[in-house]
């Protein structure tokens, strides 16, 4: 079976600085994969390179189709939704407009309307605030909105960059619960980048550990979580 996402020998550059040094990994349809690593290891860069937001070389294939020379906005049309670090909220627009923007590439108006209702069912707090400016939402609510906005695409694959960042532990639990549900029930494959390794390993099927732009470890999330040596040397808990 060909993997949904296949990354081969990915190298990325910020100006003269090389941030990724030949990274390879893959993600199967329906799975939930996490990329772990310390600050500056290259996790965010990996996600940005998949969506062609940084200069990179190497192969990124989605269902066997190369993504390398496509623009960020056209990659979205493959059904890849990227929730960036900092959530990327359209702060001066309403919550509902943010959701509509998530579906801006879709043509089925009726489907969009019913999906907005579906998001309100997933995240009741967004319904309460649907006419409010998104910038007035709390951090947790904005993260919910970012995930909901990504889901409005009806994505095949969702890329999440540190969804737990800056959120209270209880909110993080909630959010990860919802992500697991989306993965199981809506069959959305998820690639999540996290610093909160413990939580991410509980959620994921498969895990990769990145250090200074290289994959140094990979395996089933369970095995990595149970391996004390790896945990101590790479994940810091």
């Amino acid at each position, binding site marked *: 079976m060909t993997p949904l996402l296949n990354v081969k020998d990915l190298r990325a550059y910020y100006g003269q600085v090389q941030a990724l040094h030949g990274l390879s990994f893959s993600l199967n349809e329906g799975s939930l994969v996490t990329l772990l690593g310390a600050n500056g290891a290259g996790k965010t860069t990996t996600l940005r390179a998949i*969506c062609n*937001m940084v200069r990179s070389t190497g192969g990124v294939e989605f269902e066997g189709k190369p993504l390398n020379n496509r*623009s*960020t*906005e*056209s990659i*979205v*049309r493959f059904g890849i*939704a*990227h929730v*960036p670090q900092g959530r*990327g*909220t*359209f*702060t*001066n*627009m309403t919550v509902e*407009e943010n959701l*509509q*923007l*998530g579906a*801006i*590439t879709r043509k089925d108006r009726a489907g969009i309307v019913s999906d907005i209702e579906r998001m309100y069912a997933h995240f009741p707090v967004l319904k309460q605030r649907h006419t409010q400016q998104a910038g007035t939402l709390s951090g947790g609510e904005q993260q919910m909105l970012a995930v909901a*906005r990504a889901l409005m*695409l009806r994505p095949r694959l969702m890329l999440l960059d540190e969804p737990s960042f800056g959120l209270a532990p209880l909110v993080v639990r909630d959010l990860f619960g919802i992500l697991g549900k989306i993965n199981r029930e809506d069959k959305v494959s998820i690639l999540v980048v996290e610093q909160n390794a413990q939580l991410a390993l509980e959620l994921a099927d498969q895990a990769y550990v990145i250090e200074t732009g290289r994959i140094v470890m990979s395996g089933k999330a369970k095995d990595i979580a149970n391996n004390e040596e790896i945990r101590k040397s790479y994940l810091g808990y």
Partner: protein
Amino acid sequence: MELFTNQVLAGIATGAIYACMALAVVMIYQAIDHLNFAQGEMAMFSTFISWQLMQWGVSYWAAFLITLAFSFVAGIAIERILFKPLVKAPVLTNVAGFIALFAIINSSAGLIWDFTIKQYPTPFGSAPFLGSQLISTHQAGMIGVTVALLLALYFFFQYTRIGLAMRAAASVPESARLVGINTSWMIALGWGMATAIGSIAGMLIAPVVFLEPNMMGGVLIYGFAAAVLGGLSSPFGAVVGGFLVGVFENLAGTYIPGVGNELKLPIALALIISVLVVKPAGLFGRHIVKRV
């Protein structure tokens, strides 16, 4: 009292033109973070096109519509050819680009149509409006067309998907790309619309200031004053600023001794400086905090 009312209404009428110019300036500013110094010249050139069409026997409103379409396409072309390559260039390069554009359009208009002043017709006539001496039918027409334009723009940006996409691309370009919006084309579209709006301002003011290659110089400065007063980050503010500047200019010209018609223009400049000193974000603008 009648003088006062008269001046206020006349101010609202010219203010409508400033509002259009300010709106055009703000739309481009929102899209690319630069002030388009050539906005006035682009409007002037469009106005000449409509005049030329009428010389060839096209009726006023047909010429008006053809000019709108021409301006829209020309705006997109200017963005694609000149400013798209400058997207990542420093501010001064862009400023040089705008000045070049200004000079090129100004002299081409002079070359094609020469620098003599031309009469420009009004479809509204210049009789007293509704039998009142306060305002002429042309002034009422200027206000009417502007209000209709503003309402149309409001509905476009608030209730259409492409309007939503354009707002998204202007406010958070990176996120806009991540939901699949082609931000580069949204900028081009913004240029097209801004140029069309500017052409409306040009065609409405031409009967008042007469048609010649330098006709929009003063108007654009008032437009800048309006945009700065309302806040460069707020299209709504730009419109309000336009009307305020129009009224203010007229009242100052009438009541402040020594100002008169000749010194009206420095008032706009003084207004720009005062706003920048006292409230740099303008009346309705947002303070933009940048992390460094």
